[in-house]
């Protein structure tokens, strides 16, 4: 009985240590912010745009795209698509920014997104974030 109790306590202690040592990441926190907005009944025009901006800036492009799709106004969704391309290019990832433009083929957003990348390639803008 005592042995069983000791084993149980040991497993419990190890599980607790595992949980408390688990690293909290910025990606999780930003996902939690979006989940919290959903849980609150999706108020306003969408999740906080700063959440979207941070996800993109930190390089979590899939998360940012998913957050952008949650905006309720069509204008905001379109803004998010172009903004994501822009931030990707600003992060120094010009090629993947260009690749992501291919998925916009045929839409009016495509030219806007291409312009944004071209302007970042120009000398007026400096790269921020990851180079």
């Amino acid at each position: 009985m005592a042995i069983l109790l000791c084993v149980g306590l040991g497993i419990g202690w190890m599980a607790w240590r595992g949980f408390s040592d688990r690293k909290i990441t910025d990606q999780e926190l930003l996902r939690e912010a979006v989940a919290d907005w959903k849980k609150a009944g999706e108020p306003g025009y969408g999740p906080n745009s700063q959440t979207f901006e941070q996800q993109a800036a930190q390089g979590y492009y899939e998360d940012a795209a998913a957050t952008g799709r949650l905006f309720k106004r069509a204008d905001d969704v379109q803004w998010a698509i172009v903004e994501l391309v822009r931030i990707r290019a600003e992060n120094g990832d010009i090629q993947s920014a260009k690749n992501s433009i291919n998925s916009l083929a045929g839409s009016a957003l495509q030219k806007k997104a291409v312009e944004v990348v071209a302007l970042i390639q120009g000398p007026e803008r400096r790269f921020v974030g990851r180079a």
Partner: protein
Amino acid sequence: MSGALETIAPFGTSDEVFLAYGHRQIEMGDFEGALETAGRTKSGYQLFYDIGDALRTRGEQGRARKLAAHMKDRKFAALFLECARFTLWPHPEKVRVIRATPCDEAYLDATRGKFAEADEVIRKNGCSNVSFVAVHQYEADPSGAERLLRDKSDSYDLAFGLSQLAAVAARKGNIIEALRLLNDLQTVNLGEKYKGLAGDWGLDATHQIARAWTIKSGPRAVLQWARSRPTTEQRTWALIGMAEALGHATARRHCL
């Protein structure tokens, strides 16, 4: 810049990209090239003002006519001279002198770090907007700044000032003070009209506190506080502040 032109080429012309290219040429002193670029865009005349500006800065106003003389399209050359004349020569603005009030002097004193002088002027003249001085003073004299804010400001200024002091305290790493000030902000009665404003100011403070606290102590303790914020907006800003602290990017444009 050639990469930019290559990127845009398959999608036709883009004024925005050409204008950026033209600006670069002006910066490099390639005015002939900039005029050529202007000719390739619908709104190229915008570059004419900048060329005039650049020639004025260099003291080379005389070059404008020579540049125009080399342009093939005479109508475009005339338009260049017409636009550039607005920026080729300095146009001195009329200066209107407004006498500073004693309260303005106090704000100026605060920006120069003369807080004792600023406080005295505020107290003598009954200045109502003291948060500006208090926020500057808080860096050097937190208790004096808070006393000034609580003694002399109206409720609107007090709420704004407390939110600012909370943010400064957080940035200085004094999290306990920051949390106390944020708590005090939530008890200021602003009436129905300004209730929303106090909420917005509180969000900024919440964001700053979460960021600074995470940098100082790590995320575990802060997460519990962030999740306990009473509204979705507050929780979101606290989580964003924490994520900023843990990530590698800085705050972006749309802070509030």
